[in-house]
């Protein structure tokens, strides 16, 4: 019995000059699961997300998202197909308020500039919808605050709220817990579980192995742009190749 693939990546490669960020990686994400993705720095985890979402153009390989080919598609097409993401180095719209950051992810406006111009009537609805996402991420009291004055943890939650506001089928989280303390990380686990119920599948890149263990249904480990292990969190973390890859890393 196979759960259907939400995302299937085959033999994907991307190189910059002589460096292979992705070196023939294979990966599937099944419906309903959170796939954890681990690997030392430089393994290609963010490169993978960038290639899937269209920030990088793949050099070779296939990517299939719910029956749609992703290779060669533009950023906004992929966004509209239903893939949402967060960023390792947090890329919020700093000059907009928290609420506006989420509102702009509302695909009705994104798709139709004309109705966006005249959309005064829609605004109420859009605001309510955006507030709903903010509530989900415990940010509604910050709605009118400028995004640049958020704390680290709040900024990461806002990114998730913004990604969710597009009703993605697949959510890709890139190190959401980076820089968080223990309390914040605990709260984040809850938030991710909440987010999980909103999407069909999730990819979670993390260095925090506790987070990986508690949230992932399966784990894939990467190094040098390819997959080196796959399976349950405990089996992957005990895998000799994985341990070797992390040798010298603090974790």
């Amino acid at each position, binding site marked *: 019995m196979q759960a259907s693939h939400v995302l299937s990546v085959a033999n994907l490669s991307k190189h910059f000059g002589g460096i292979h960020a992705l070196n023939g990686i294979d990966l599937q994400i099944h419906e309903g699961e959170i796939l954890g993705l681990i690997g030392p720095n430089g393994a290609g985890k963010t490169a993978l997300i960038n290639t899937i*979402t269209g920030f990088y153009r793949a050099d070779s390989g296939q990517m299939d998202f719910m029956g749609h080919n992703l290779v060669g598609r533009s950023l906004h097409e992929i*966004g509209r197909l239903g893939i949402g993401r967060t960023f390792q180095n947090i*890329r919020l719209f700093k000059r*907009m308020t928290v*609420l*506006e950051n989420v509102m*702009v992810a509302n695909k009705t406006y994104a*798709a139709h500039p004309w109705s966006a111009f005249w959309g005064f009537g829609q605004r109420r609805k859009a605001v309510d919808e955006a507030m709903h996402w903010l509530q989900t991420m415990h940010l509604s*009291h910050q709605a009118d605050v400028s995004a640049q004055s958020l704390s680290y943890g709040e900024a990461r939650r806002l990114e998730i709220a913004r990604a969710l506001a597009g009703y993605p089928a697949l959510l890709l989280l890139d190190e959401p817990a980076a820089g968080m303390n223990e309390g914040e990380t605990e709260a984040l686990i809850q938030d991710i579980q909440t987010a999980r119920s909103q999407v069909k599948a999730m990819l979670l890149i993390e260095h925090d192995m506790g987070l990986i263990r508690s949230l992932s249904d399966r784990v894939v480990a990467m190094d040098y742009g390819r997959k080196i292990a796959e399976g349950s969190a405990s089996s992957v973390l005990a895998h000799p190749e994985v341990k070797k890859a992390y040798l010298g890393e603090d974790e």
Partner: protein
Amino acid sequence: MIADHLFFTCINILLAWSVYVSLLTGSLSFAQGAFMAVGCYASGYFTAKMGLPMLPATGLAALISALIAALVGYPALRLRGIYLILATLGLTFCIRVLLENMDFLGGIGGFGGMKGGDLPKAAAAVVLIGIVLWLLSISPLQRVFDAVREDDRVAAALGINVTAIRLIGFSAGAAIAAVAGMLYGHYMSFVRPENFDVTLSIYVVLYLVLGGVNNLYGAILGAAIMTLLPEYIRFLADWRPTVFGAAILVLLLFRPDGLLSFRPRTALSKHGRALNAPGV
């Protein structure tokens, strides 16, 4: 005399706004000279040679201008802003050369016979376009513009068709510049291609930068100052470029984070909080 000054102030406000609308989407355009020329010549052709009344002539001219903008802008708008700057500079230059070579439009000698431009019409244009820009600033589309301007790749990842948005901003700017061109031509009644050169395009951008880019009022301020003051202060008129250049550089001292930084919105933006949404 003062009607004269006010008329040109209106023209410059429109031109500065045309840069502003493009800039809202993150595109810095140096092509306003070209679009103004297109608007002027096209509308002039429709009124003087074909006998159309001013309003439809203006509409058609603005449309033509917007189409040219979309056509030329398309290759450049998909790429980094630096390419648009070069392309728009090139466009201004090219339109001028083309016009100089189009003898049915008067060539280098110029094109005349337009009439009917005056201060009331210019002022009306300013008011109308100002209202449209104000409507834009409170509409959801403004947020989309902001997102595209601030981080175009993230905006695209959210599903926003960034190229389309940029085309809209750029073409709208071209249409506004065309209106300014129409008014100018029908006021001066005789124009030559050299009136619409690269220097004009550059000045227009600087009006906006000087007045401020945060909202639509900056264009009014910059255009008014740089059009009216030199009329009353001889020194400013004689040394216009130097004063202008120096003013920009002085602005540096007070705004070290740059001339084009849009100020972030602080708490209680107008439409954020009229909602009584339950907080959590």
